[in-house]
């Protein structure tokens, strides 16, 4: 009985490992390409390691950090990093507030038109962001925030996904707890801050990760809504490495730049890995 269970768990481990490998392959490929000298095409020799046509035995001849240096020269990366970080924080901070308040209202308050209103908000989930591009641009220009970091944040301050998520979580919090707090003299904001939010922390963490990675990876809106380098995020700078159509793709530099851009997120994830996985498991986001 035990040995059979062990056998199945080994099979499961192997299958998990294989799946993980499939997901890892693009990343491995990216790293290898970023280290490959630009005059050694991928078609020469072994795709992973192997060697240039002239130095058959020297494995190290394949590896170079030149691509990272070249990619580093292309843009003021630290400045773009600052913008990316500020935008991510500026979006997430406001989202936390709006989705908490709205989530509470839809979960616990009874008012006329609640279902209809929630329906409207959820409708937002079905509209692809690209459709709103020109409208958002016009709005941002009328507000006078075109070509500022505010333009990158504003369209995301209200989040249908976040509202839905928090509403569902708050609905799972027993109203008895709220009533007990109210008897102790707490007002609604205090109840939110002391009762609902602490009990829903895993949901917040999970939402934060989704929101951070979505804003971090976003290209089109920042590209359209800003013009000056000072207020442009990392993705727009990365575009420069991608746009070498006339001379052909410089894969080494492109991959090196890509790794530079994703590095902060990867580090963040590795640091809080356990926390994130627990949060996703308990909040049910995939």
């Amino acid at each position, binding site marked *: 009985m035990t040995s059979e269970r062990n056998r199945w768990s080994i099979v499961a481990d192997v299958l998990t490992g294989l799946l993980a490998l499939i997901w890892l392959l693009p990343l491995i490929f990216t790293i290898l390409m970023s280290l490959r000298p630009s005059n050694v095409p991928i078609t020469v020799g072994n795709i992973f390691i192997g060697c240039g046509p*002239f130095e058959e035995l020297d494995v190290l001849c394949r590896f170079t950090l030149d691509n990272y240096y*070249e990619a580093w020269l292309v843009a003021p990366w630290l400045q773009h990093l600052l913008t990316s970080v500020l935008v991510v924080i500026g979006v997430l901070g406001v989202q936390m507030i709006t989705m908490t308040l709205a989530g509470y209202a839809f979960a616990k308050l009874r008012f006329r038109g609640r279902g209809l209103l929630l329906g409207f908000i959820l409708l937002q989930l079905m509209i692809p962001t690209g459709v709103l591009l020109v409208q958002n641009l016009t709005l941002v220009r009328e507000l006078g925030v075109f070509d500022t970091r505010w333009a990158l944040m504003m369209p995301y301050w209200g989040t249908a996904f976040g509202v839905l998520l928090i509403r569902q979580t708050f609905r799972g919090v027993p109203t008895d707890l709220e009533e007990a707090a109210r008897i102790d003299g707490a007002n609604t904001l205090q109840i939110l801050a002391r009762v609902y939010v602490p009990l829903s922390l895993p949901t917040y963490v999970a939402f934060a990760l989704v929101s951070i990675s979505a804003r971090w990876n976003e290209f089109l809106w920042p*590209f*359209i809504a800003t013009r000056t380098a000072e207020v442009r995020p990392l993705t727009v700078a990365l575009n420069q490495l991608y746009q070498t159509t006339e*001379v*052909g793709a410089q894969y080494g530099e492109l991959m090196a730049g890509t790794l530079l851009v994703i590095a902060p997120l990867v580090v963040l994830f590795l640091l809080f890995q356990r926390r994130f996985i627990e949060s996703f498991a308990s909040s049910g986001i995939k």
Partner: protein
Amino acid sequence: MMRRTLLMLVVLVCVLPVAIGISAQDDITLDFYFPTAVDGPIVSTIEGYVAQFNEANPGITVVPSYTGSYTQTRDTIVAEGMEPIVDVAVMLSTDLYSFIQEETIVPAQSFIDTMDDPAAFVDDFFPAMLLNSRDADGTIWSIPFQRSSVALYYNADLFEAEGIAVPTNTEELIAAAQALQTEDRAGLLIPVAGGFPTWMYQAFAAGFGQPLTAEDPSVVNFNSEASLDAVTFLTLVGTSAEDGGYGVGPAGGSAWGETPTAFLAGQAAMIYHTSGSLSNLLNNADFTVGVAFAPSGPEGPATVLGGGNMYIFDDGSKTQEELDAAWAFVEFMSSPEIQSDWGVASGYVAARQSAWDMEPLASRVEEFPQYGVTRDQLDVAVMEFSSYDSINIDGIVNSTLSGILSGEVPLEEAQATLDTAQAQIDGLLDAYR
């Protein structure tokens, strides 16, 4: 506590846009959009030129905006819709007639005519560089900025070792390719695979006697004898000898991006590519890179220009001062000093003759005479395909050529296919005749 924070946030959100809006000034501000198409720190180079201009011109502030690729630049301008922000932009030289039709640009000619010595300014540009700037009446609309042409690159070490002369026409090109071809080395790579062979094709159409377009934007020559000869030649390059071809390259041609890398790795003796690749090839090759006039015709070399020009935009709302400021900036960017520096920094062919006598370009050419070849072959260059409705016509030309080159359409049916495409093109152009 929480309530106060919340209140402050709401106030902040309401006040902030107003606070930002106040920072307006009396200076003329120009928004300059530029795409990139080659590698290297191109954006910071251009921002450097803009900073130079701003410093030398108090009262004018040019705000440089990197706008991605040519297509992304175009999309950005389109997204701005009825209230355009753009004042000056680098766009494809072949976009001329769409801009003229949209009535969004001001002809450079109107500023050139007010110069002290218009002829001196115009004559300093290589005549070929202005081919795509002029309309059928000879009016100059745009000013060349980042221009390139199709060139032949060859592995000079191989040529020397085998004692082969550098080809000057299609016959010698094939002979050299056949002599230098080995098991793991193609004789000649021409990047016409991947769905966009029009640019390469144009060099050969010109070489075989009839360029795709000339001055008249309502005429496109796609089913002439030269067209058939050019597309036949390009197809035979990739057709094996058993099937009656020259068999010196891969069937269907090579892919654009992979061609320079294959050359660098010693997998090709000769390649056709843009002059913009020269710096990359010189920097990364472990052999001597030779550059020659593209030997695209039976009678001798022929090439085609490509790349981007500067346009001044006006939706009718601009004052004369603003337009003059925009022209001052365009004139600055096309000045020999900037073009000389730009040629070295980017690898584009400097558009003005005097730029080549200036530093740093003069020293670069002395050290690497290859750069001089890309300049000298301007003598055999034709204008890039440019016509009314060019986006749709470009689509027809690309798909027709790709069909023949890939072997999907056999060569015996090539003429009929070209005739069909020509009929479609004429249908589109009839509206403009």
